């Protein structure tokens, strides 16, 4: 059997992305929501790496590696700022429940 193909890599990335999206939608704990966001970033990175690797045979270009490094940088910055916001929310409200964060709704 030939499992290590572009299609199976894309399918794995899609499944991981769907799991992360389910976590973002269905969980109320903000920490777990951010962890699910990291899973979604990982899925996108995996699909990018798969396209780079399986198209190198024809195109001979590896820009995707650099793009993945850039996405990892953005994800790290996002995690830092998001966790700082989470700590501020906890300091003001003593809870990190997403259903309680409804001040902006009016």
């Amino acid at each position, binding site marked *: 059997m*030939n*499992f*290590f193909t572009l*299609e*199976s*890599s894309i*399918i*794995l990335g*899609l*499944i*991981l992305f*769907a*799991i992360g*999206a*389910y976590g973002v*939608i*269905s*969980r*109320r*704990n903000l*920490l*777990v929501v951010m*962890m*699910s966001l*990291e*899973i979604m970033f*990982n899925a996108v*990175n995996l699909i990018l*790496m798969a396209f*780079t*690797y*399986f198209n*190198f*045979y024809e195109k*001979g270009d*590896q820009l995707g*590696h*650099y793009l993945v*490094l*850039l996405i*990892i*940088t*953005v*994800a*790290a*910055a996002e*995690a*830092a*700022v998001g*966790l*700082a*916001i*989470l*700590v*501020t929310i*906890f300091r003001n409200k003593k*809870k*990190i*429940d997403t*259903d309680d964060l409804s001040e902006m709704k009016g």
Partner: protein
Amino acid sequence: MVDIIFLICAIFAVIFSVLVVLMKNPIYSSLFLVGSFLPIATIYILMYAPFVAVIQILVYAGAILVLFTFVIMMIDLKEKEFKIDKSNIYRFLAFGVVSIFLIIMLSYVGFKTFPDNKIQVSHAKISDYLDKKGKTFGSTKAVGELIFGKPDKNPIEANKKTMSSMQIVSFELASILIIVALVGALVLGKSRREKIK
């Protein structure tokens, strides 16, 4: 061999990601998050990208997970607040939305995009090609040359080539982004109650 490693890594990544989403206690979620990052790093190694794999382990499993664990220890939630979760109807709705997304995308992958199987190159063929032509594929040297341009004998020419490469711009923009994120996290995390003299 490669196929078996890929299959094992895929199964572990999916299982650990599901556990991250389903665990009630966030500390277990962060533990399983490491478990879902490491198989993906292994898949990067299979894809001839050792540099990206090492960066994945360093940044995700090293830095971001430490950040998450520190925040979990810092905010000191009560036991009953760990247990909160959405009601069943919300979870059912989320599952439905995600299932529709997955079915549409999988059918797109399966039936529409690659009908002629041109893209399904076998792994042996690729490794032969890499052995012949691109020994540095995915290495630190290759990624560095991609960003900064190839080193040249003539320094003026090399400088021109570096300036004309588009990757250096986004590289510097990423460094600016990191500094802005650092300042933002500091400002947000600073306590407002006590005055600094």
